[in-house]
């Protein structure tokens, strides 16, 4: 269990994974995001909370959307933001991950927002940064994507009253999905009644049930009576590893169509972490349909990231005052 993402008083110091965080903290993040979500509707979409702070988006893996929402979130909090896109092949040419990190740290950075293609990379970086630097995990390998999970929880909370009575199904490539792992942990921590995963055996981790989920291999039984349907993005390179025969067959079995959605409760909401592959994991008519909340998720992403960034940097300033 990560030992160092909380300060001694239980405040967020880093945000690396949902695992090990308690329900009140997750609720606090969502409450904070609720306050921030108003800002985006104002004429001046800015608050001076992080004025004078330097945040570096350190992306070792390509991403436009996630990086943009982190950048927007930081700017709305009045922080100075720099983007570093480093493809991993460049680092393997000589400079190690730690060298890169220490170089950027020398520029008096207050926070790193990190995305990396290796599981455990954010944890590794957090273990090696100077004590006054916060690390936010923007996705590490197949391990965790905690801000995505929190914006999903926030979206669910806006639509459904009580987590305890919910039945949530996550469809698709659980094996390689950092989003799914973080979602499952967040849903469990918030006390969701039942968490299901649906997919072919090739895309589910061995011993999935130890994650605290019920495993289904078909949509009809898996979606029955479900309140929240989450489909995951299917990385097209998965077609090459003998995991699936074709995108067409995947859509046939696990693509979310209007027809299959009927198995879920009539008021079920449909979510997707994006970017979506239309006609692979989800039909356009569902993605754009009345039950879809996919675009709301994107909007909420900014508020959640503002919440997490401000909480982590606030705990750092507190720490500095004590010292």
């Amino acid at each position, binding site marked *: 269990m990560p*030992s160092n993402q909380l300060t001694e008083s239980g405040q967020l110091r880093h945000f690396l994974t949902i695992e090990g965080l308690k329900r009140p903290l997750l609720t606090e993040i969502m409450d904070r995001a609720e306050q921030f979500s108003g800002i985006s509707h104002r004429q001046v979409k800015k608050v001076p909370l992080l004025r004078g702070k330097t945040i570096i988006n350190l992306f070792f893996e390509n991403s436009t959307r996630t990086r943009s929402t982190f950048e927007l979130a930081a700017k709305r909090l009045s922080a100075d933001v720099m983007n570093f896109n480093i493809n991993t092949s460049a680092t393997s040419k000589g400079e190690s991950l730690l060298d890169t990190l220490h170089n950027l740290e020398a520029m008096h950075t207050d926070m790193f927002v990190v995305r990396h293609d290796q*599981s455990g990379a954010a944890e590794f970086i957090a273990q090696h940064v100077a004590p006054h630097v916060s690390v936010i995990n923007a996705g*590490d390998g*197949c391990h965790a994507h905690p801000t995505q999970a929190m914006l999903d929880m926030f979206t669910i909370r806006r639509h459904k009253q009580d987590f305890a009575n919910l039945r949530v199904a996550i469809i698709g490539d659980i094996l390689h999905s950092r989003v799914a792992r973080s979602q499952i942990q967040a849903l469990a921590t918030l006390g969701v009644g039942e968490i299901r995963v649906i997919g072919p055996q090739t895309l589910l*981790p061995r011993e999935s049930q130890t994650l605290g989920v019920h495993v289904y291999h078909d949509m009809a039984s898996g979606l029955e009576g479900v309140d929240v349907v989450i489909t995951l993005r299917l990385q097209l390179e998965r077609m090459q590893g003998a995991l699936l025969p074709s995108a067409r067959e995947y859509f046939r079995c696990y693509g979310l169509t209007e027809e299959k959605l009927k198995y879920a409760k009539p008021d079920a909401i449909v979510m997707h972490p994006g970017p979506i592959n239309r006609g692979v994991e989800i039909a356009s008519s569902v993605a754009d349909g009345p039950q879809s909340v996919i675009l709301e998720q994107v909007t909420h992403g900014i508020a959640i990231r503002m919440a997490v960034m401000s909480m982590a940097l606030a705990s750092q300033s507190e720490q500095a005052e004590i010292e």
Partner: protein
Amino acid sequence: MKICIINGRVIDPASQLDIDHNIYIEDGKIVAIAEDLAGFDADVEIDAYNKIVCPGLVDLSARLREPGQEHTATIESETRAAVAGGITTLAVPPDTDPVIDNPAVVELIEDRAKKAGRTMVLTVGALTQKLNGELLAEMAALKAAGCVGVSNGVTEIKNTVVWRRALEYAATLDLTVFINAADPWLQKQGCVHEGTVSARLGLSGIPESAETIAVSRDLILIEQTGVRAHFHSLSTGKAVKLIREAQDRGLPVTADVSAHHLHLCEHDLGNYDSFSHVMPPLRGVRDREQLKQGLRDGVIQAVSSHHQPLDADAKLGPFAETTPGLSALETLLPLTLKLVEDDEISLHQAIASLTCQPAAILGIDAGQLKAGASADICIIDPDVQYDCLPSAFISAGKNSPFGGWLFQHQVSHTLFQGKVVYQREPN
């Protein structure tokens, strides 16, 4: 030089000896194990009061990094570490750089080891040239140069025809084949055991079938070719079962386990602890118990270090990008004897699995205390409480997951060919 080891508890599993006797040594050889030897005038007396005196340890697999990676470790540095761990004989796998596929490399290693002069370094030759899995190595020449067996190291021979021919050829030369059993495709895919921990941490898994498929295939070819074979570093309970059945059928098959697989399991990965990144991976708790059972039953005859010293950078990075392996020469003895402290195996079994049994696998005359034998001796203090401190290892590799473990058994002296090559500094 005449040495007498007095007052110790002499344990020699090969001869079922467990007695409070003195050991008399002259000209590098044991002269007698007796209560008294009239007319023996020792130059040096070593008091082994309250200590165990047993044969020097025999390690079936330790990488010394020379030739090829002298910046990481050398024969000089690692033989010093070996004797600090009580090891007086060790075998190096062929995957040096250049590969041990010709007599020149064998000579180079032997030469360096002789210069170091503190432990017997044996070589295991390559089965195929450059370990490429395609062309057979000149095994007769390797045998003549002194190789105690042949192996393809951790590089699998994928082509079953080549594999079969290699085993047949080794059988012709009466060479033991040392096998690291792993299906190359299933193994290469992952970095940790496929199970609950890989599911939680999002690390790609290596299923147990990576080992069982390879062991099954190899056993069939061993039966067909009649070659004598040894399996290195078993990691799964199912592989132990396969080996047990093969031995029951009468196949000439032996096996070893690494000391770390007897103590650690997948849960020791904790939070991406790269020191626990080893190959084969740490498996489930049940596998660990079945490995211990295999050792108790004699299906597994030896505990080995599978020493792989690495420099600090090799373990600094996201888990999957770090290099697997651990520095293990100095923890082999305390870890194996920890099983005795925990009542898992008897003291005699533990010492046998570190001395005469691995010596028998290598087909060498070592690992025994008897008159006329080379005086390769390890003296163990069985009751010191100390914390394992990897940063204080003598080995150039400090990469060990056992930092902070409480050990009880500690080497106090090591003798090689009648010479004290290690003596622990008094605390």
